């Protein structure tokens, strides 16, 4: 097994990044104009990187598969973005954000990367405010904060329930400014279908123009993958329909290692599955756990009565409710990290206390918050002895001002009024901590190929804390890549334009074309969607919230069978050289069918429970996760082998913890 070099700079933790930056070789403005960069993806990571690199003077091409960069999946992020500003003076600091992230990630992330993230977090907020991002403010005109799970300070900045939208529109505006200047060429409705490697370096991509269907060649001196997460391997997730692993997987097949692919985040508060033709799941932001309390009935017969429609949740008195998070984790209560909250919900539902028709839902209840806010508001307004109705009205108004759009979204989907009835929620796939392996400079194992944002594995270990993905995407794009990509490119100032008529481009284009022809010529009977749905079922049942050896082995076998069936029986109409969304989908599902197997292999190899990865064989008597630091304090980086995901080779990057002590994560 080879050793991976993470290229972590020397020096004390707090000095590494500053020192590293000061030593970076510079590229002169005249030379920058000779250098081309491809940025695939225009979410927070991609838009911010493309804009910043263009501002520096590089020639940038930015790709996305949607019709506009503004529609990248980052747009859907709801709750907020963390930053160690300590505006609330509640004891926050760079070190605390660093520590919370390492602990929250269950000690499976790299200290140096996480510290850098915490260091640049404050600048992100400054940058966004300067761009005109309308964050929530207090009456005094200063920025407001809220709390997220797994922490005891308020460091989350937000714009109602549309924080991702506002941040992405900020980054998109910076990108648009560079497009107007001619510094960025925008290629929307383009999908990367191959990576081109020349003499061991990433030198371009093959992209399919999704409108004309044409396969296009684009060359550059460096390629940045900012293509988001692969949660859609589970079919049902909170990700957008188009979110995919294709760009990352193509890079993986060309030599980029995939790190910790099994680390998936299952978000505790999503709207439960309602039917068989459901195409996606909707998140109810974690910010709701600031004020909502999670419970199920204390007695199984009450749960049954509710399931059968004989009893309403509002009929149950306080002593007949089990606020199980407050009971099990008194210190953090409803704000335990996501993995802990999700497993606790599953535990209650498996034990027979679930409260919807399928038995897979718990309550998220705002009645205490409405009452508390209402009483406060009545007091402020000087209303003496307010009656119950007055209090409720006032309280509901405050809840509406904080979470209005989420409540509305809930009501639209479920046709129930969450101000009057507790919400029903259940865990769902939400985010992937795993991703392309990168070193400290965000460079993958393919020189010249970088990965940013959710596409890389870098900062969140085995579990990501809420409001930290937006922070990481913008940190990578605005404040890290502009330096580290520049370092790499400083060797390329005399290279000159990379030609696209080389054998490597020919070969990459032919590979892409052959694959697509394979789908079109298969002449099978089954639409792509059905394979995706079947894969999702395997992944959710065997590689979801709880995993075990037997199940994972079975999943691997099942996925292999499904993959064979896909190639022999998939039905895709039309041609390559035209608009053909089914063909695009076939390519994405084919890649998910390979990734799924690797995820199960990774979960099988990691014989411990940590963060989102819960192996049933490794739990305490109380059902808490048991980590094994002696054996598994490493990043599992997988190398693709012989065109067969089943033969992938494991490389370990040992993690060393010099600044935090490895503790059992406790939220009690």
């Amino acid at each position, binding site marked *: 097994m080879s050793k991976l070099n993470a290229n972590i700079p020397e020096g004390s933790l707090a000095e590494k990044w500053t020192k590293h930056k000061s030593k970076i070789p510079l590229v002169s403005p005249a030379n920058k104009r000779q250098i081309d960069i491809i940025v695939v993806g225009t979410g927070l990571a991609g838009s911010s990187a493309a804009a*910043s690199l263009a501002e520096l003077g590089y020639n940038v091409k930015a790709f996305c598969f949607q019709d506009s960069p503004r529609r990248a999946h980052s747009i859907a992020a709801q709750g907020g973005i963390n930053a160690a500003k300590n505006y609330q003076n509640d004891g926050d600091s760079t070190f605390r954000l660093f520590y919370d992230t390492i602990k929250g990630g269950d000690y499976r992330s790299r200290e140096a990367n996480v510290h850098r993230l915490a260091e640049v977090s404050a600048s992100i907020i400054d940058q966004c405010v300067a761009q005109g991002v309308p964050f929530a403010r207090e009456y005094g*005109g200063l920025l407001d904060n809220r709390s997220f799970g797994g922490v005891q300070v308020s460091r989350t900045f937000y714009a109602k329930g549309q924080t991702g*939208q506002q941040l992405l529109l900020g980054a998109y*505006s910076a990108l*648009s400014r560079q497009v107007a200047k001619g510094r960025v060429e925008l290629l929307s409705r383009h999908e990367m279908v191959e990576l081109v490697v020349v003499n061991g370096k990433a030198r371009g991509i093959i992209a399919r123009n999704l409108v004309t269907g044409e396969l296009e060649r684009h060359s550059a001196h460096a390629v940045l993958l900012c293509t988001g997460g692969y949660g859609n391997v589970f079919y049902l997730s909170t990700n957008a*329909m188009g979110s995919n692993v294709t760009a990352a997987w193509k890079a993986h097949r060309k030599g980029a290692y995939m790190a910790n692919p099994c680390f998936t985040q299952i978000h505790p508060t999503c709207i439960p599955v*309602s*039917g068989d033709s459901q195409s996606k799941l909707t998140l109810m932001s974690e910010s709701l756990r600031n004020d909502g309390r999670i419970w199920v009935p204390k007695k199984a017969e009450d749960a049954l009565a509710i399931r059968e429609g004989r009893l309403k949740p509002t009929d149950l008195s306080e002593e007949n409710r089990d606020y199980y998070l407050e009971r099990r984790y008194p210190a953090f209560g409803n704000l335990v990290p996501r993995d802990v909250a999700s497993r606790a919900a599953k535990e209650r539902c498996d034990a027979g206390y679930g409260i919807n028709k399928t038995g897979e839902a718990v309550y998220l209840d705002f009645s205490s918050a409405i009452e508390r806010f209402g009483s406060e508001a009545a007091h402020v307004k000087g209303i003496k002895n307010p009656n119950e109705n007055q209090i409720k009205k006032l309280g509901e108004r405050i809840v509406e001002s904080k979470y209005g759009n989420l409540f509305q979204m809930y009501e639209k989907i479920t046709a129930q009024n969450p101000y009057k009835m507790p919400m029903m929620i259940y865990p769902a796939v939400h985010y992937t901590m795993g991703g392309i392996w990168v070193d400290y400079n965000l460079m993958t194992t393919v020189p010249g190929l970088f990965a940013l944002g959710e596409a890389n594995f870098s900062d969140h270990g085995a579990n990501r804390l809420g409001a930290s993905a937006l922070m990481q995407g913008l940190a990578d794009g605005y404040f890290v890549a502009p330096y580290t990509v520049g370092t790499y490119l400083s060797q390329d100032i005399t290279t000159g334009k990379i030609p696209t008529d080389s054998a490597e481009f020919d070969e990459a284009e032919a590979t892409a074309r052959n694959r697509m022809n394979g789908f079109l010529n298969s002449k099978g009977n089954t639409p792509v969607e059905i394979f995706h749905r079947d894969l999702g079922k395997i992944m959710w049942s065997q590689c979801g919230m709880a995993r075990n050896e037997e199940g994972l082995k079975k999943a691997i076998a099942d996925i292999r069978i499904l993959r064979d069936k896909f190639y022999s029986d998939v*039905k895709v*109409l039309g041609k390559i050289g035209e608009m053909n969304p089914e063909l695009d989908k076939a390519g994405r599902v084919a890649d998910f069918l390979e990734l799924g197997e690797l995820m199960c292999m990774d979960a099988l190899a990691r014989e411990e429970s940590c963060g989102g990865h819960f192996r049933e064989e490794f739990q305490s008597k109380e059902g808490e996760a048991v980590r094994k630091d002696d054996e598994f304090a490493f990043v599992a980086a997988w190398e693709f082998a012989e065109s067969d995901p089943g033969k992938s080779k494991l490389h370990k990057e040992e993690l060393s913890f010099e600044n935090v002590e490895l503790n059992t994560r406790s939220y009690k």
Partner: protein
Amino acid sequence: MNFTINVWRQNGPKEKGGIATYKVSNISDDMSFLEMIDVLNEQLIIQDIDPVVFDHDCREGICGMCSMFINGEAHGPGRGVTTCQLHMREFKDGDTITIEPFRAKAFPVIKDLMVDRGSFDRIIQAGGYVSVNTSGNLPDANATPIEKQDADAAFDSATCIGCGACVATCKNASAMLFTSAKVSQLSLLPQGKIEASERVMNMVKQMDLEGFGNCTNTGACEVECPKGISIENIARMNREYLSASITSK
């Protein structure tokens, strides 16, 4: 539930389109409108008919992709919803539903229900930003307090999802609501005030260049906007434009 679906089919921008009629059955009332189309498409593929092309991604009302004109209304019946947030429970068993693309000169049809809204991107490129580069040395975010009222109003304008329902609904295919939402957001904030005049002039100019029509204050856009963007934004933009054109002369 069972439905008859009349849907616009058009092979390319230059080709002639027309309505095709299909039947779907066993639709549950919990299904979203787009899930109903998924069912239709699965059925079409099995019958060797090209599936209906439509734009969609987030399926939760925020990306702005799912542009459809349903029974004569942008995003279908119901206020404050995008097509992906519309559920089949809003329809009656046996209904005939007609689906067409958003229509406007500046939104050419690409295929079936999919249109090209690149003109919106170009309006933003003309000035929908604050000219500030990335650097680690900007003033502290709390250095300039902003009145909550202004910050909230800026936020409300900034929630536009760029879907184009306003354009598709307007009899003049005007993009005033979309453009004014961005102009308002930035002019309400101190950071955006500095370039306000230039911004409004350039964005309005681009809007006209793209072939969007004039605003005649019918207010239909506001009614159909899924995000409740108010026509007050248009009034604000008109004021900004007026004062900018006076000072620029």
